[in-house]
């Protein structure tokens, strides 16, 4: 009985991990409309959490705190996830510590930027 419970908890963790992978994949299709590169390859996503029920928490940044498109990018993140999971609550927290820098761009992102 004890061992079955352990197996159930383990499979739940696996489900959470799979869901987080799916959410990250969704985010890799959200574009920064000015730079025209997705926000995952730009390195703007700091953390993705899923509580295993119906809440997704995303901690992300912007290439500059003064970004005039911040509302549009945040709305795009929320709506993209809600399209796949209409009943989910999506919390997006914008943070500027640590400050975003070039080292956060993925190799694919660097190719897209022409670096």
């Amino acid at each position, binding site marked *: 009985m004890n061992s079955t419970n352990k197996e159930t908890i383990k499979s739940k963790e696996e489900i959470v991990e799979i869901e987080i992978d799916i959410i990250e994949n969704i985010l890799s299709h*959200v*574009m920064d*409309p*000015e*730079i*025209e590169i997705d926000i995952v390859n730009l390195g703007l996503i700091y953390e993705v959490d899923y509580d295993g029920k119906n809440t997704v928490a995303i901690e992300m940044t*912007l*290439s*500059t*705190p*003064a*970004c*005039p*498109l*911040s*509302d*549009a990018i945040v*709305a*795009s*993140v*929320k*709506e*993209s996830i*809600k*399209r796949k999971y209409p009943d989910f609550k999506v919390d997006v927290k*914008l943070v*500027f510590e640590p*400050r*975003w*820098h*070039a080292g956060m*761009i993925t190799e694919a992102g660097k190719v897209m*930027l*022409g*670096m």
Partner: protein
Amino acid sequence: MNGLQTANAPSSKIVVPHFVVGGIALLIVAILLAISTPELLTAYFDNKLIAITHIAILGWASMMVFGALYQLIPVVYETSLYSEKLASLTFWLFLISIGFLSYSFWIASYSNLLFYASLLMFFSLLLFIINLHLTYRKTKKPNIQSKFINTGIYWLAATELLGTLVAFNFKYNFLSDSHLHYLKIHAHLGLVGWFLLLIIGAASILIPMFMISHNLNAKKLDYSYYFINISLLLAMTNWFLFQSKYVSILAWIGIAIGVVFFLSFVYETYSTRLRRKLDVGLKYTVISISFLIIPILLALFLLISGNSTAFILRVTTIYGISMIFGVISMLIFGQTYKTLPFIIWLDRYQNYVGKYKTPLPRQLYSEKLADVQFYSYLFAISFIIIGVILKQAVILQIGTSVLIFVALLNLANILKMVWHKTKIEDLD
């Protein structure tokens, strides 16, 4: 919350009309220049040239700058505009004043219409200055960029005050020196105090943002700010009280050092940029900033060359052209392509992002037209400058004709963006 400045952005109904009127004003300037070739080659203190200069500076450059500033202020000041109603009232009063003032100059009604036109212009600019000053007072954390812009607005007030006094003087004749003397001061307060400070303030926040450059040495901007402002104060005091050539040269050195600090900041931004490929907006911007060196050098040449020969008068015309068309207009073209598509895009698509497939902001205008406009503009400016230097009317006319073509392309792209209808597609 830091970073959510779009919540502070003004309605696009306030911002967009400035771009449309600015685009139309440039077309009017280009047509008037094309029919005023003889005046361009003979003198700069001519009623028609003064009328064209005021349409260019107020109707084209300032109108575009006002529109862009209303959008940029929330980003730089991190607060909303003090009053959108005041901005709307300013727009209409400013528009009427530009027409009235330019007409007064064009028909040379110095002692009659100009008095009323300048009074109306003074009042409309005062509304703009009050609105932006009260917005600045709401700023919690003033930065060097907001200081540049706010100080530029004070210099605009000084420019306008002197311009109005000169206009009044045509009617009541109370100033001690010649009109030409005061017009020189008026022009320099406007070009250096208002436009140069504004260019540095706006460019030093926009260029690093668009080029994606970080960890820049902002101290250079502090030095630039103090060198330019102290030197301009020195120059103004000298123009009014001493009129010493040596003090003027000293003030020139101070302004030049300030510009060099800014150029060094832009070079650092450019060389450390992550975004390697420059789009048309950034190409205009880079050339505009590099072009700053030309009016700076021409100012020195004019300062040390004493006699007002015909050649010196033409160099003075080129000095004005290089600043208005080489630096200011070039930057406005560039920033139009970097701001207007986003203003329209946010207005049309903000509620659809993530839910539907939307076009990208750059797809709201024709990139092909923008490219043709860019190269045609470089051609037009080169021909106009060469035409004035060599005193060749034909070369000048080719340049001004191409400028009409450029103004048409510019207006076509502005209207294409403004008239853009929302186009969304399902994501699947």
